[in-house]
């Protein structure tokens, strides 16, 4: 168990600032998710923590010790790569044993340790297979077992679920979370998938263009986004943003419902909503349309749960409403969240 801290870290590739002055600290045993679109610098940040990439500026501390210029092998970290990076010429057993051998572990102790790691991920029976004889899910387990086997103090994961199919991904997510809780490793997890981030993280770090946009628990990030980038990056469909009197008004699609379903002591705002298109996704219906009152620009989306029983059709206008409590306001020029209200 360890704390990881990065202080003013930057990584420049020529003119490109992949990571640009990031400060971040994990708590001990925390599951921290780095979330952002591709090219936002999250993987580069992770690679710098791992010691694979040397920072242009700034420092990395693991357990209060500066490790910035130390090679990966002395940092006591483990990393799972997006491609899993299993050694193709070695059996599963040898793959898992490799980190133990490199650390000069007593040969007699290795089999038991490998057995322990393999059992943890239910891959005891695959020990003699080569990676190419494994399915995607099995490979991922082997990669996790290889990472865990020497009980690192920090566990780094680079989009480890992105090569799995959707069904497997959900169960792998659950297993990963339970495993992390059980072992208590400080974990830093990189993903561009907001569902993974919301589901896994104790805290989420939202990054864009090499900088941190917001750090916080998933609910806080989702409900109180620090700026319009976070507001539109999280949530599917993203938060509706409409311009009103020099500010941007935001509300989540699931908070924008037919007026009869919205009631709140804090009051509601009701709009005539001209529906242009309906998308029935089974569990929910996405309703696309325009608001033509008060707001200058007005294309918004509403997300109706499947059990909300209303008959609406495209081409007609209905009264839709959002609770005032669910409205967020952003400065139009900086994009940052501000205080505000609607009449």
């Amino acid at each position: 168990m360890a704390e990881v801290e990065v202080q003013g870290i930057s990584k420049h590739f020529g003119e490109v600032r992949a990571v640009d002055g990031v400060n971040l600290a994990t708590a001990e045993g925390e599951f921290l998710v780095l979330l952002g679109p591709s090219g936002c610098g999250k993987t580069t940040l992770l690679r710098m923590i791992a010691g694979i990439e040397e920072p242009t500026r700034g420092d990395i501390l693991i357990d209060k010790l500066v490790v910035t210029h130390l090679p990966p092998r002395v940092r006591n970290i483990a990393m799972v790569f997006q491609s899993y990076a299993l050694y193709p010429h070695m059996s599963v057993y040898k793959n898992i044993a490799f980190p133990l051998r490199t650390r000069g572990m007593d040969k007699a102790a290795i089999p038991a340790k490998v057995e322990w790691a393999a059992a943890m991920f239910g891959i005891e029976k695959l020990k003699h297979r080569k990676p190419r004889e494994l399915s995607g899910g099995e490979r991922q387990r082997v990669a996790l077992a290889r990472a865990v086997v020497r009980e690192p103090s920090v566990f780094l994961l680079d989009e480890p679920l992105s090569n799995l199919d959707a069904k497997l991904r959900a169960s792998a997510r659950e297993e990963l979370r339970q495993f992390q809780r059980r072992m208590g490793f400080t974990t830093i997890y990189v993903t561009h998938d907001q569902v993974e981030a919301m589901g896994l993280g104790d805290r989420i770090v939202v990054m864009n263009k090499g900088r941190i946009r917001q750090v916080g628990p998933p609910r806080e990030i989702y409900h109180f986004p620090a700026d319009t980038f976070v507001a539109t990056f999280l949530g599917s469909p993203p938060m509706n943003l409409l311009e009103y009197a020099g500010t941007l008004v935001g509300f989540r699609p699931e908070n924008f419902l037919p007026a009869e379903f919205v009631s709140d002591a804090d009051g509601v705002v009701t709009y005539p909503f001209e529906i242009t298109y309906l998308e029935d996704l089974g569990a929910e219906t996405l309703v696309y349309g325009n608001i033509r009152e008060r707001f200058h620009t007005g294309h918004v989306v509403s997300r109706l749960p499947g059990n909300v029983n209303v008959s609406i059709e495209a081409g007609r206008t209905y009264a839709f409403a959002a609770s005032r409590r669910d409205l967020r306001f952003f400065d139009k020029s900086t994009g940052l969240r501000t205080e505000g209200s609607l009449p």
Partner: protein
Amino acid sequence: MNRVMEGAAAVPAEGARAGVADRQGQLAPLMIAPAIAYIVALIGIPFVMAALYSLSDVTTGDPSIDFVGLHNYREVFYDPVFRTALSNTCLFALASQTLVIILSRILASALMQDFRGKWLARFLIMLPWTAPIALGTIGWLWMLDSIFSPFDWLLRRAGLLGAPGVLLGPMPNLYWLGQSGLAMASVVLVHVWRLLPLATVIQMAGLSSISRDLLEAAAVDGATGWRRTLEITIPLTLPIIGIAFLFGIVFTFTDMTVVYVLTRGGPVHTTQVLSTWTFFRGIEGGDLAQGAAISLFLFPVLAGVASLMLRMARRAEVT
């Protein structure tokens, strides 16, 4: 588009016809035919001729083919020069290729790194491959000259040669091509010089095929540079190293230019190889039958090497 309806006969589409290019059954033989014609004309026929000659008493003076059975093979095999040539051929090929593989591995690793002037370094290393072998070897002939060799000059300047009591003796020259051991070493050296570029390129291709993730994973797993080389890169590039090695074996086994230009097989046959001995016996000596028999001794070895190469190439594809 064809429409097949129940109860109605299928009607072929009008105006649409499959050309030769669409019919794989015809296209494949058609495209492979030139290669087969080439192999038959330039390899198949000469090979059959050589086999026929080796079983006959044909000479340049008497081109009529009278069969004498395995007489030529027996004759050749009990000739001590042939035995020297056979062992030299194997020795030169193995020694030079072992050196080539080690050196090319080091060079390839160096050239995979990022440094200033990398392009120039790669270009210079490739140069020997672009020079005609005969010309390159003539250059070496001059450098290994018995009197004017620059190597000797350097050794004399360094105080290692040409004075009483120094390491390499009091003689002013080493006579590179005039002493059997040095002559053999010189032949090996020139083979190494000539084949190093090809092997380096093959090894670089092998190294660049290893995913960067794997090496990084090994680094994170705690492997040092040596361990990564011995346990990750070498095992992963082994099939490709094998191909480079076998290529080199074939090239050195069949090459006569280097020995012919440098030593003509001398001194006293100590650098004789099968290809030069074939030439001296068959062409210069006029004994076509024995020349053919000598050259056919190479065949089983080269056939074995070729089949190994094909197998390795397939393995390299799989992993």
